[in-house]
C-alpha cells in the first residue's frame, strides 16, 4: 500500500515544484526563436505523384534563396540568416495531401516565431484549412499553385467566403497564379476554338477540381453556347471508370473535360476513355499539367486521342519576358539541368516575392512582412510584370494551353481571355 501511493506522489511533487519554478522563470509558453534567423517554410505534397511537380517548386524556392546567399540585411541594421524548411503536407501512405498534415504544418509555422513567410499550398483544399490558422498568426502566405476562386474572391463561393478564411479581417493570403475564373473561361474558349459543339464534364469532387469544372460548365453554356451533355463527380478511390465512360460515349461528346488532378485519377479516366472506344479530345486544368500525368496514363495512350492541359502561365520554353530567361539560366547553372516542370517558375516567383516583402518590411515582424507582401506592385517576375490586387490575387492573366506529344507536354498556344 505505501509503495503504491508514494511513487505517484513523489512524481507529482517533483512535477509541481519544477512547474512552479518554471512559471516564475518564464513569461508564457511560446518559444522565443533565434534573434538573427528568418525562416521561410513551404508546405507542399512531397510524397506521392505530385512530387515531380513539387520538387520543381522547391528547387525554384531554393534558387531564390541561393541568389541572395541565404542572408538578408534589413533596414533595422541586422543581417539575418535565411533558413528554409520544406514541409510535406502529404503522407507516404495517402500519396496525396491530408488535412491533418496540412494543419500540423500550419501550426508548426504558427508556433515558430522565426517564420515570416509560408509558401503554399499546392492544393486549394489544403489552403482552405491552413488559411484561418495562419491568418490569426499573421503569417504571409504565398501560394505557387492554388487556383480555386473562392479562396480570395467574394461572390464565387458561399456567402461567408472568403471572409471565413480571414478571421482577423486582415488579408494574409496571396497567390502568384491566376485563379480559375480566368482558367475555366480560357479552357472553354479553347474548347470553342477546337469547334466542340457538345462536351461532357467530369470532376473529382474536390474544392479545386469541382470548382474549375463548374466554371468551365458555366462559361461553356453562357459565353460560347457549347452544349454541356452532363456533369458528374467521380470517386477517386475507384480503380476504373469504364461504365461511366461507356455511358458518356453513347452521348457522343466532342470533348471531355476533367476537373481534377493527376492524383485524383485523371490518367485512369483518360485510359478508360480510350478503352471504351471514345476518341474525342480530353482536356484538364493545370493540376494535370505534369509529367506524372503522362506516366500514369502511359505514353502510348496519348497517340490515340489528344490530351490538352491549360496552365496559368507559360511553359519554361516560352519564358521570354521579365526575369524569365535569367531564371532559366540561373536554374540550369545551379541545378545542372533546366527545370522539368512549369511550376518551377512559380516556386521561384514565390521565393522572390517573400524576399522582396521581407526586404521592404525592413524588420523581422510578421505583420510588417504581411503588409509589405500584399503591397507588392509592378513586380518584375518570370512571366512579366504584375501586381497583387486588393484580394491578394495576381493581376496577371497570361494562360497557355498545352498538348501531350511524343511523351511530353508541348506548348500549343498562349491564350488571352477575351472580354
Amino acid at each position, binding site marked *: 500500500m505505501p509503495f503504491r501511493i508514494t511513487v505517484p506522489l513523489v512524481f507529482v511533487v517533483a512535477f509541481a515544484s519544477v512547474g512552479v519554478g518554471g512559471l516564475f522563470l518564464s513569461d508564457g509558453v511560446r518559444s522565443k526563436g533565434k534573434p538573427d534567423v528568418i525562416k521561410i517554410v513551404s508546405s507542399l505534397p512531397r*510524397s*506521392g*505523384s505530385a512530387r515531380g511537380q513539387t520538387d520543381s517548386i522547391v528547387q525554384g524556392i531554393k534558387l531564390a534563396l541561393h541568389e541572395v546567399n541565404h542572408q538578408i540585411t534589413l533596414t533595422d541594421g541586422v543581417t539575418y540568416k535565411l533558413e528554409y524548411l520544406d514541409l510535406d503536407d502529404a503522407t*507516404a*501512405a*495517402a*500519396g496525396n495531401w491530408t488535412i491533418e498534415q496540412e494543419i500540423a504544418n500550419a501550426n508548426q509555422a504558427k508556433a515558430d516565431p522565426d517564420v515570416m513567410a509560408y509558401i503554399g499550398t499546392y492544393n486549394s483544399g489544403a489552403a482552405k484549412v491552413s488559411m484561418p490558422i495562419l491568418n490569426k498568426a499573421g503569417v504571409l502566405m504565398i501560394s505557387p499553385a492554388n487556383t480555386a476562386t473562392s479562396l480570395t474572391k467574394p461572390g464565387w463561393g458561399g456567402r461567408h467566403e472568403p471572409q471565413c478564411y480571414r478571421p482577423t479581417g486582415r488579408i494574409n493570403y496571396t497567390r502568384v497564379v491566376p485563379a480559375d475564373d480566368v482558367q475555366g473561361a480560357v479552357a472553354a474558349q479553347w474548347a470553342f476554338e477546337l469547334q466542340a459543339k457538345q462536351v461532357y464534364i467530369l470532376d473529382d*469532387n474536390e474544392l479545386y477540381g469541382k470548382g474549375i469544372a463548374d466554371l468551365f460548365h458555366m462559361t461553356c453554356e453562357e459565353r460560347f453556347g457549347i452544349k454541356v451533355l452532363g456533369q*458528374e*463527380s*467521380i*470517386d477517386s*478511390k*475507384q*480503380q*476504373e*471508370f*469504364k*461504365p*461511366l465512360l*461507356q*455511358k458518356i460515349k*453513347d452521348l457522343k461528346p466532342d470533348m471531355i473535360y476533367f476537373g481534377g488532378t*493527376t*492524383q485524383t*485519377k485523371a*490518367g*485512369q479516366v483518360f*485510359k478508360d476513355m*480510350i*478503352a*471504351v*472506344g*471514345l*476518341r474525342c479530345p480530353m482536356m484538364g486544368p493545370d493540376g494535370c499539367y505534369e509529367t*506524372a500525368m503522362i*506516366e*500514369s*496514363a*502511359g*505514353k*502510348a*495512350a496519348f497517340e490515340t486521342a489528344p490530351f490538352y492541359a491549360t496552365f496559368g502561365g507559360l511553359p519554361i520554353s516560352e519564358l521570354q519576358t521579365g526575369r524569365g530567361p535569367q531564371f532559366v539560366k540561373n536554374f540550369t547553372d545551379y541545378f545542372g539541368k533546366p527545370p522539368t516542370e512549369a511550376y518551377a517558375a512559380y516556386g521561384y516567383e514565390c521565393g522572390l516575392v517573400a524576399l522582396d516583402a521581407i526586404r521592404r518590411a525592413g524588420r523581422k515582424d510578421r505583420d510588417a512582412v504581411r503588409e509589405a507582401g500584399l503591397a507588392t506592385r509592378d513586380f518584375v517576375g518570370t512571366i512579366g510584370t504584375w501586381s497583387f490586387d486588393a484580394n491578394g490575387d495576381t493581376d496577371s492573366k497570361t494562360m497557355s494551353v498545352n498538348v501531350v506529344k511524343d511523351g511530353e507536354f508541348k506548348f500549343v498556344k498562349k491564350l488571352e481571355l477575351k472580354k
Partner: protein
Amino acid sequence: MTFAVEPTFWTAFLQQTIDGLAFGALIALIALGYTMVYGIVELINFAHGDVFMLGGFLALTVLVLCGLEGLGVDQNRIKLDDLGLWAKAGLIALCLLLAMPFCGAINFGIDYMVYRPLRTAPRLAPLVSAIGVSFILMNVGLFWGGAQDVNFPKLVSDDNLLPADTGLRLTAKNAMVFGVTVPLMIALTLFVRFTKLGKAMRATAQNPTAARLMGINTDAVIGITFAIGGALAGAGAVVFALDVGTISYTMGFQNGLYAFTAAVLGGIGRIPGAVLGGLIIGLVRYYGSAYVGESWTGALIFGILIVILVFRPTGLLGSPTREKV
C-alpha cells in the same frame, strides 16, 4: 470510331452487362480465395486482397525485366508496337505462370508463419493478424511501386471482336478476362469435387477433428487451400492489370473489399456462391455507374453487403448452419 447502329437503351444495357460480367468474373476469381479459406478455417483473410496486389507488381516487374517500359525504367526499351500477337500472348502466359505460384507461395507462407500458430487461439486473434499481414504486404507494395498509380503495359488491345453492325463491343480484353477466369473456375470446381485432395479439403472444412482422425494431414490441406487461393488471386492480378491498365498499392484493398462482399453475398464458404456473388457485384458496379451515378456505386455495393448479412447471413447459396456452441 463511327457507330454503325445508333445506341439504344437496350444496346447500352447489354454493353454494360458484358463489361459488368467481365469485371464480375475478375472479382469472382479473388472471391474464391476468400471463400475457400473461410470455408476451411473460418477466417476472413484480410490479407488476400494484398496478395492479389503483389501479383500485379510481380507481373509488371516480369515485363520490365523482359524489356518493356515501366517502374521508372524507360530508356532503350522495347516498343509495344514492335511486338507481335504471339509475343504478347507469350508475355501474358509468362506473367500468369510466374504470378500464380508467387502469390500461392506468399499465401501459403502467411498461413504457415502467421495463422497456423494461432489455430487454437480465440477467433479474434487470426482476424487481427490478418489485418496486420495486410498492412505489411501493402507496405511492400508501396516500396515496390510507390504511392502513385503505375501504368501497366497494354498487351491486350481494345479492338472489338463483334461485327460493328451489332452496336455492341466485346473487346479482346473482355475475351482475355473470360478466357482466363472461366477455365480456372471450372478447373477449381473439378479439382475440389473429384480429386482426393479436394475431398480432403471438403472433409477438413466439414470437421477438422474428424478429418484428422481419418488420417488427413489437416495442416497440409489448409496450407494447400491457402496456396490455391493465392494462385487464383495471382491470376486475377494479371488479368486485372491487363484489363484496367493500372496497378497501385491500394488496389488490393478496394478489390479485396469487393471480393469478400461477393463471397459473403454468394454464401461464404461455397465455391459456386463466390462465382455468383462476383458476377452480381460486377453487374451492380456497372449498372450502378450507368443508371444510378458513378459516385454511388461504392455505397451500393456495401449497402448490399449489409442487407444480405442482416436478412440472409448465409448468403444466396449458403444453407443455414447451426451455431457452434
